[in-house]
């Protein structure tokens, strides 16, 4: 039974009551932590490498360093001489990175999505992607699980051998970046 307002009264509710209740109630919602989000993206991008590392520092300290991209990126990435933010609209940025290597003269412009614990950078044109994610270690708030992704955002059978070669280089590069981040935070040699 239901009253004219659609709320249940004494006795069994109508199907309309049940529908209204189910539609208005809080349903359980699943979430994807930033690191898992990066790994999910990597699954669809055969040209990228993704690696995670535990850093012995709280996530606020780690992200405090990373989020200042013009300072952090040239510090931890040996291949970047400078990074400049060209435009900013909330969490969306446009940034220009210049290589530190003399043979790579062309600067790369990136569209950046920067949120707490999450950074996703896609170059223009779409030739290169960079992803970074940080979250507190589930068992220790003093540690951070940092996930780093880099590579070319395309694949396919024809490009297979090329991608295998670039992935080897990428793997070393991502590992070097993670070393650089740990060093910059005073955690590494």
């Amino acid at each position, binding site marked *: 039974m239901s009253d004219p307002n*659609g*709320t*249940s009264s004494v*006795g*069994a*509710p109508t*199907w309309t*009551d*049940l*529908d*209204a*209740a*189910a*539609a*208005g*109630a*809080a*349903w*359980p*919602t*699943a*979430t*994807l*932590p930033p690191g*898992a*989000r990066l*790994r*999910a*993206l990597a*699954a*669809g*991008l055969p040209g990228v490498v993704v690696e995670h590392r535990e850093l012995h520092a709280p996530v606020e300290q780690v992200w405090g360093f990373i989020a200042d991209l013009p300072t952090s990126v040239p510090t931890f990435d040996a291949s970047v001489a400078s990074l400049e933010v060209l435009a900013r609209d909330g969490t969306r940025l446009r940034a220009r990175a210049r290589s530190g290597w003399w043979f790579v003269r062309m600067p790369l412009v990136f569209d950046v*999505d920067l949120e707490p614990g999450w950074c996703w950078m896609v170059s223009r044109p779409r030739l290169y992607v960079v992803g970074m994610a940080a979250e507190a270690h589930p068992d220790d708030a003093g540690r951070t699980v940092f996930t780093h992704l880099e590579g070319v955002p395309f694949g396919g059978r024809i490009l297979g051998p090329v991608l295998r070669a670039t992935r080897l280089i990428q793997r070393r590069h991502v590992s070097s970046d993670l070393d650089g981040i740990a060093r910059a935070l005073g955690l590494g040699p």
Partner: protein
Amino acid sequence: MLRDLAPYLGRICGAIALDAGDDALQEAMVAVTRNLTTLREPDALRGWARRIAVREAVRAAAGGRSVPVDPGRLDPAVSVPDGATAVEVRAVLDALAPEQRAVLVLRHLDGLDEAEMAEVLGVAKGTVKSRLHRARTAFRERWTA
């Protein structure tokens, strides 16, 4: 695009797979990104991703703790409090089979009709109808217990 998709798939996976929802969402997102290039019509992304999420969520739930029960034998001790806004949907969802949760989710979160639900779930319309009826009966039993 995927940024907007994740919260939507999270609602589907959470409501169907419950405690295994995060794992289901991860698997669904992996399947979506891995197979994105096979999608011929970008406009169909949401519906296509929804099918993947429902499939992964039902699979994750089947491997988890949730066990289908006879709606007529629900434990009255954990009955739903009266009043539309105070309904603990979670208590009811816990008692349903993943397939039944799936029809409730598609009906109430997505507003799909029976034909659309049948397409998403890959079952006959009559099957959807009976699952929905059983799910609603469970809801009703729990409510009035």
